[in-house]
C-alpha cells in the first residue's frame, strides 16, 4: 500500500490518519520524543527534485519512529549520470529500503516506482499532480484550529495551475467537509476543474469578507509561474496578502502557506508574523502527519 494522492480517499480514512497524527503530536511533545515502532525499518528519501523542508520533515518523522533513513538526491547522483528512474528505484530497493519517499518533477513517477519495486511509496510531490502529506498536514492544522473542517470556507489563492499542493488540498479539504474556492488570475487557474468540487474566481477582494481560511500558494518561478502574469507588482496588487487585505478578513480567519514564503509577494511580513498565520503550525504538524503515514504503511503486515 502506498500514499500517492488525497483524491478519492474516503473521509473515514482521512480522519483516521488525522486522529493518528494527533497522537503522534503528543508523542513529539514528550520529553523523549521517540518511539520504537519502526525499529529496523529503512526509509529511503528519493528526491529527484530539490526540497529541503519536506525531506527534513520526512527524515524527522522516520527517526522519531526509530526507522533508519537513507537519503538520495538527484543532484550529483547516478541520475545525473543518466541512470533511468527504474534502475535507480531498483537499486534503492536492493539496498534494503522498506519504503520510499519520492519527489519527482514528473507527475506519476511515485506510482511508477511503487509498481516497479513493489514497496510502499509516499508521494512527496510529483510535478503539478499531488503532494498528499501536505494536504493532510494542512487539514490537521485547520482541524486543530476550528475543531473540524465541516462548513469551513477556504480560499486557495495563487498559482493553482502549477500547484500540486492545491490539488492535494482541494480533495482533502472537500472530503472533510470544507468548501473550497480557487482564487487566481485566469492564467493561473487550471485548464479544467472538471470533477473538482470547487468554485473559482479571479477576484480575491470579492471573497475576503466571507472566508475562514486563506491558503496562499507560492508563486513557483521554477514551474513557469512568473511567465503567465505581467509583473510581480501587478500580482501583489491583486492577490498578495497585504496587511490591508488581512484586516478585511473575518476576525477568526486564518492564513496558511505551504512555504517557502516569498515575503512581499504572496504574503506581507506583517501577515506572516501574525498569530493567525499558521505557517509554523503547519510545519510542526507535517512531522506528525508523516509519522502517521509511515506508521500506517510500515507498522503492520500490510
Amino acid at each position, binding site marked *: 500500500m502506498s500514499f500517492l494522492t488525497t483524491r478519492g480517499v474516503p473521509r473515514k480514512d482521512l480522519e*483516521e490518519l488525522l486522529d493518528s497524527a494527533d*497522537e503522534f503530536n*503528543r508523542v513529539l511533545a514528550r520529553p523523549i520524543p521517540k*518511539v520504537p515502532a519502526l525499529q529496523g525499518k529503512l526509509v529511503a528519501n528519493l528526491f529527484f527534485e530539490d526540497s529541503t523542508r519536506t525531506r527534513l520533515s520526512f527524515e524527522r518523522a522516520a527517526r522519531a519512529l526509530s526507522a533508519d533513513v537513507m537519503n538520495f538526491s538527484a543532484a550529483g547522483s547516478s541520475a545525473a549520470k543518466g541512470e533511468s528512474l527504474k534502475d535507480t528505484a531498483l537499486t534503492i530497493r536492493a539496498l534494503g529500503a522498506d519504503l520510499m519517499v519520492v519527489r519527482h518533477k514528473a507527475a506519476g513517477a511515485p506510482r511508477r516506482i511503487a509498481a516497479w519495486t513493489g514497496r510502499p511509496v509516499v508521494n512527496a510531490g510529483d510535478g503539478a499532480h499531488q503532494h498528499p502529506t501536505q494536504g493532510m498536514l494542512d487539514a490537521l492544522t485547520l482541524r486543530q484550529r476550528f475543531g473540524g473542517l465541516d462548513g469551513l470556507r477556504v480560499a486557495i489563492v495563487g498559482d493553482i495551475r502549477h500547484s500540486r499542493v492545491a490539488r492535494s488540498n482541494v480533495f482533502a479539504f472537500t472530503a472533510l467537509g470544507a468548501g473550497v474556492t480557487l482564487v487566481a488570475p485566469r492564467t493561473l487557474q487550471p485548464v479544467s476543474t472538471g470533477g473538482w468540487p470547487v468554485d473559482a474566481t479571479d477576484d480575491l477582494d470579492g471573497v475576503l469578507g466571507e472566508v475562514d481560511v486563506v491558503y496562499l500558494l507560492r508563486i513557483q518561478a521554477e514551474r513557469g509561474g512568473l511567465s503567465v502574469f505581467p509583473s510581480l507588482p501587478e500580482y501583489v496588487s491583486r492577490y498578495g496578502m497585504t496587511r490591508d487585505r488581512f484586516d478585511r478578513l473575518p476576525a477568526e480567519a486564518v492564513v496558511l502557506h505551504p512555504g517557502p514564503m516569498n515575503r512581499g509577494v504572496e504574503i506581507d511580513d506583517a501577515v506572516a508574523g501574525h498569530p493567525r498565520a499558521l505557517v509554523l503550525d503547519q510545519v510542526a504538524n507535517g512531522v506528525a502527519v508523516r509519522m502517521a503515514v509511515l*506508521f500506517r504503511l510500515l507498522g503492520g*503486515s*500490510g
Partner: protein
Amino acid sequence: MSWPLRVLEDSVPLVMAAADVRKSLSRMAHEIVEGSRGEAPVLVGIHTRGVPLARRIASAIEGFAGSRAPVGALDIGLYRDDLASRPAMPLAATRLPVDITDRIVVLVDDVLYTGRTVRAAMDALNAFGRPAVIRLAVLVDRGHRQLPIRPDHVGKNLPTAASERVSVRLVEIDRGEDGVWIEPGAPGISGADGRV
C-alpha cells in the same frame, strides 16, 4: 470461590457472568489499595478493554476509600514486538493524567496471555517517567506466558488450551452484558479484539 460454567446460545460457555466480573473487580480494588500501603496508586488501562476496567476499579476504590485514583489510558501499538506480523491498527489515545515518576502504577488489562502486551506496556510507560513500582491487574489470566511476567491481581485464573479464544465483553465497549466467554478458535488468538 467457585465459578459456574453456563452455556449461552451458540454453545459458547460463559465463565464469568456480570456479577462475577463485578465481584472480581471489587476484590481487586481492595487488594490494590492494601498493596499500595497508604500511597495513592495510578491506574493505567491498556487499550481497549483495560481502560474501562481501570475506571471501574477506580470507582470501586472511591466507594470504600473515599478518594479516586487517577486513571490513565495506554495504547501500546507503537511498542509491540510483532508489528510486522499483524495488520496496521489505528492508534488509540494515550493519556496519563499525572506524572507517574515515583508513583505506584497499576497496569490494568482484560486478559493476560503471552505477556507480550504487558512487556510493550511497560516500555510505553517508561517513555513517560520512572514509576516507583509497576503492578499488573488482569480480569482473566489464561496462562501460556511467553515472557517472565506474572500478574499481581487476578480476577480469575482460567486454564485454557492455546487453541481456545477468551472473549471479554464490557458494556462500555461491547453490546449486551458484561461477561467472559471461552470458545474454540484459531490458535494463538485471544481477547475479543484479537490481541495476544
